[in-house]
């Protein structure tokens, strides 16, 4: 047994390095996607202290809107900005109808409100788009669908072009987001609100404007996530389930940290894949991805309750 745990996995990695590369690549792609979902949570939490339970359904809603518009004759490249308009209108509606009346309410009330938003979007989405599986308009959006095949060390490495596009797209999106948060006036306002609500309000930062903005940015991230995941296995309400994969990322990276979401996502993506392939499948019958990330996050929380990159909260009494 000790051999199976401490020796064989590493022997397997060395004896088939092409396969190891494939595992790491698949983990990296998953990690980028987890990071994207986690970013949506972090942005909203940072600016409003709301844990946005609706992030998963926003992914579905954004992807369905894009596909739905195209099905109704709107060209793909026009459907994309129109979907962004819909996500902006959704952000405005959420701020006006749900969040504004709940200002100064306890966090749990706001959290419950996001569950309400989830239920509304599930029903509304099904009414408008139906529950059937739909095909993502990958080619129409200009996303390449072929694959590159390499033979490193005489083995086989397959890189899907849409996965490469997803990774590059996610990196560009994250860089743009970091630039926006760190260099723009509005970005600094979001960070200021995250640091101290009252201080930010006292210097004239508009809470409602910032909330609309962060929910809109979360909508953009949801659309990007929906396109990438939808291209893998179709667009349906099952996409909502993938939001749960972001929870351990948030536990690991910290709820307030953009860099934590990115590094946490990549760590979980790669580590869970390596664990599943080299330890989970041979020793435990597989399917360890359902719990590995949570156990890893739990382990981190034992030593750093605020997560790897979260802010340490010290309450003085």
């Amino acid at each position: 047994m000790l051999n199976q745990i401490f020796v064989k996995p590493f022997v397997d990695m060395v004896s088939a390095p092409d396969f190891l590369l494939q595992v790491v690549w698949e983990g990296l792609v998953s990690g980028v996607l987890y990071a994207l979902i986690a970013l949506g949570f972090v942005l909203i939490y940072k600016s409003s202290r709301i844990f946005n339970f609706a992030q998963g359904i926003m992914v579905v809603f954004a992807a369905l809107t894009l596909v739905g518009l195209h099905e109704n004759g709107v060209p793909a490249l026009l459907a994309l900005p129109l979907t962004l308009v819909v996500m902006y209108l959704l952000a405005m509606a959420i701020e006006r109808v749900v969040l504004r009346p709940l200002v100064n309410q306890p966090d749990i009330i706001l959290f419950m409100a996001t569950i309400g938003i989830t239920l509304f979007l599930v029903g509304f989405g099904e009414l408008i788009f139906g529950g059937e599986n739909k095909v993502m308009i990958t080619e129409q959006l200009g996303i390449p669908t072929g694959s590159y095949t390499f033979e490193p060390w005489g083995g086989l490495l397959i890189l899907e072009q849409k996965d490469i596009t997803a990774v590059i797209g996610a990196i560009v999106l994250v860089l743009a987001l970091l630039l926006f948060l760190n260099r723009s006036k509005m970005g600094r306002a979001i960070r200021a609100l995250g640091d101290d609500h009252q201080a930010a309000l006292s210097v004239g930062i508009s809470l409602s404007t910032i909330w609309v903005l962060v929910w809109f940015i979360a909508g953009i991230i949801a659309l990007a996530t929906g396109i990438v995941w939808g291209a893998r296995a179709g667009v349906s309400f099952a996409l909502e389930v993938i939001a749960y994969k972001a929870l351990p990322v948030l536990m690991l990276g910290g709820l307030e940290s953009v860099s934590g979401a990115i590094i946490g996502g990549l760590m979980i993506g790669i580590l869970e894949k390596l664990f599943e392939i080299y330890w989970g499948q041979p020793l435990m019958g597989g399917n360890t991805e359902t719990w590995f990330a949570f156990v890893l996050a739990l382990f981190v929380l034992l030593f750093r309750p605020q997560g790897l990159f979260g802010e340490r909260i010290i309450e003085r009494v």
Partner: protein
Amino acid sequence: MIKLTRMAAMATVLAVGTAMYSPAAFAQDSIYVPNLSYRTGPFAATGIPLMNGQRDYVMMLNARDGGVGGVKLDYDECETGYSTEKGVECYEKTKDKAVVTQPWSTGITLQVLPKTNVDKIPILAPGYGFSPMADGKIFQWAFNPPAGYWDAASMILEYLSGGDMASLKGKKIAFLHLDHPYGKEPIPLFEAMAKKYGFTFLPIPVGLKEMQNQSAQWLQIRRERPDNVIMWGWGAMNAGAITEAVKTKYPMDKFIGIWWSGSDDDMLTVGEAGKGYKSISWSQPQPDSQAMADIKKYVIDAGNSLVENPDVDTKKVFYQRGIVISMILVEGIKAAQEHFGVKAVNAEQVRWGLENLDMNAETLAALGATGMVPPFKTSCGNHTGHSGAWMLEWDGAKFVPVSDLLQADQSAIEPLIEQKAKEYAEANAPWPVNNDCKE
């Protein structure tokens, strides 16, 4: 906007329909047939066409014949989202008036199975549920015609072996399945067959959250290099698996799914690239059948169907399977009406009807459904019927049959059914058994 208008019209039709078919309107002259449907959630893509088929057949009978034996059918859906907890709630909510319960998930079936003994309501689970339910002596209230999961497992192996099971010796067969009671259901039979015929059986579970990202499972398949992959998928898992199979360049002609992994909609994502993928099926579409013509005339053309694109969607495998499922239920009701001489039959009488189904070639022809399902017959000791099934293959645009009717190896299945049914009854003692059945 067009879609919104259409949805509003459908909602109106549903509302009016519900009012028209309400229990108050029918009083004792209706038969309440609830369906624990799942048109929402991660499995909706599988559920919607099935529920549409079921609903349209009942609507057609109500419109064409005034129901069954002069009594209208009060079809009602209770949404479960494929959740076991919600399914049990729906069962409790509908059981007082229901003549049948259609749980639509192996998880829900297992939960309501003991309750139906007390409530005396037959479970109708066509092609799903707990395989030992075939033993009618022990599972008096449960029916899974026309074929069970162990039938499917046996027929798939029969097909892979080309009729010579000994040829499977030394082969490796991967079993990609949803990590759920449904996905685990055929494992006992596969394990028994692997032992008997000397092939390696490799179960590969897929968690609910991994349905759309099965890269780890397909990396394992790439590493293990199985001779064949058999899939027991549901909902979004099917499209996820087929996409990954294409991506990893796994030969499609070596990939076979259960009948719930053979939906046209699941194949849309891969289209041509999925050519050669197969699915065992106890139903096959017959778009030119009389039953379909009547549904078009009385339901679709009348604007009472929920199908979005009738010209395309009504020709698909799952829609037409939904029709067959309602057909089986209605034949059970008819048999009960004839036997007991009662129009508005109750649940106990419908149980008798389902136990005495005779869906022979003449009956199917009379129903205008020749070729939609193989002929089968149930009895007090055999609640499945073991109809056999066809192998369907995706040709890039639709599923087409590529085999004659296959039959399961009952000599391998029957002892397992007997053993597992007995174990279940003992584990749940005291469990009522039908000692009057001498089969």
